[in-house]
């Protein structure tokens, strides 16, 4: 490896591999954007009972993350939910 390799883009085959891995998670889960959208709406409804969340900024996606202590990676559902205000539950 020479010095200039540091500034180069990653090899295209690694880009291909990463993109494929992600697309296959969706394919295998048979998880269409439609289903993901429904899931997102349900999550918003449930969480909104307890906290005020920023619906616009909410982001949900399926990705791969490594399992601790192993090379294997698992599919995870990542939800990024910005909270505006914690609501006090009135019972």
């Amino acid at each position, binding site marked *: 490896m020479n010095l200039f390799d540091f500034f180069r883009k990653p*090899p*295209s*085959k*690694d880009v*291909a*591999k990463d*993109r*494929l*891995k992600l697309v296959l998670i969706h*394919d295998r889960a048979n998880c269409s954007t439609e289903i993901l959208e429904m899931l997102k709406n349900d999550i918003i409804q449930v969480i909104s009972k307890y906290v005020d969340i920023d619906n616009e900024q909410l982001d949900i996606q399926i990705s791969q993350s490594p399992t601790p202590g192993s090379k294997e990676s698992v599919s995870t559902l990542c939800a990024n939910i910005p909270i505006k205000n914690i609501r006090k539950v009135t019972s």
Partner: protein
Amino acid sequence: MGEVIVITSGKGGVGKTTNSANIGTGLALAGKSVVLIDADIGLRNLDVVMGLENRIVYDLVDVVEGNCRYKQALIKDKRYPNLCLLPAAQTKDKDVVSPEQMQKLCEMLKEEFDYVIIDCPAGIEQGFRNAIAGADRAIVVTTPEVSAVRDADRIIGLLEANELNNPMLILNRLRLDMVKRGDMMTIDDVKEILAIDILGVVPDDEVVVISTNRGEPAVTNLNSRAGQAFYNIVHRIMGENIPIANFDDNNKFISKIKKMFRIGA
């Protein structure tokens, strides 16, 4: 009792027909009796790849519809002993054949032949379901490209849903120069993504185009890298343990030595 093997891929143009022709011919050269079935009704091609296009009288649809006995439709390849082709119909609709009819045909043919090799059409519709209906095992062909690998994954899922478990993979048209530059996925990359056993790797070799031009499968030319790759695939199908050549060798010193002795490809 023979074995029915379907050769499939999902995506078109990755080399199903070429692989079918070479595997069928290779098995025949190894002394097995083989029948090749072109299941791509409406778009027949295996006949022309095999160089048998001038000898078609009856086809798969004629057999299934009972217009002739199956033996009348089989074209005997005069060059190789024990090799027959059952061509696809060119003019008829693919929906005239049902999975049950294909299954029955395969049962009949495997009584008589050691291997029944089915060239599956591209796609996942009726033609695919017909082609896999009578199969005992499946071979998935892919190239190291994102679209082909994605479709291969889909096909593997569909095969397993149809109880064709543990399909094996042929990685076709691998370009060593691109692999060395890091611009093409390697055998290990594809294996990792698809989580499937590799049956063989066929390097991108102009011999395949030349031999297809002539209607003589590349496996008959063992001096070519592709011919050698097909030979290895055929013998692995027959149960021999031939290690997969390592094409991922990045060690320049070793590759140079290998080049000097022309090994490892």
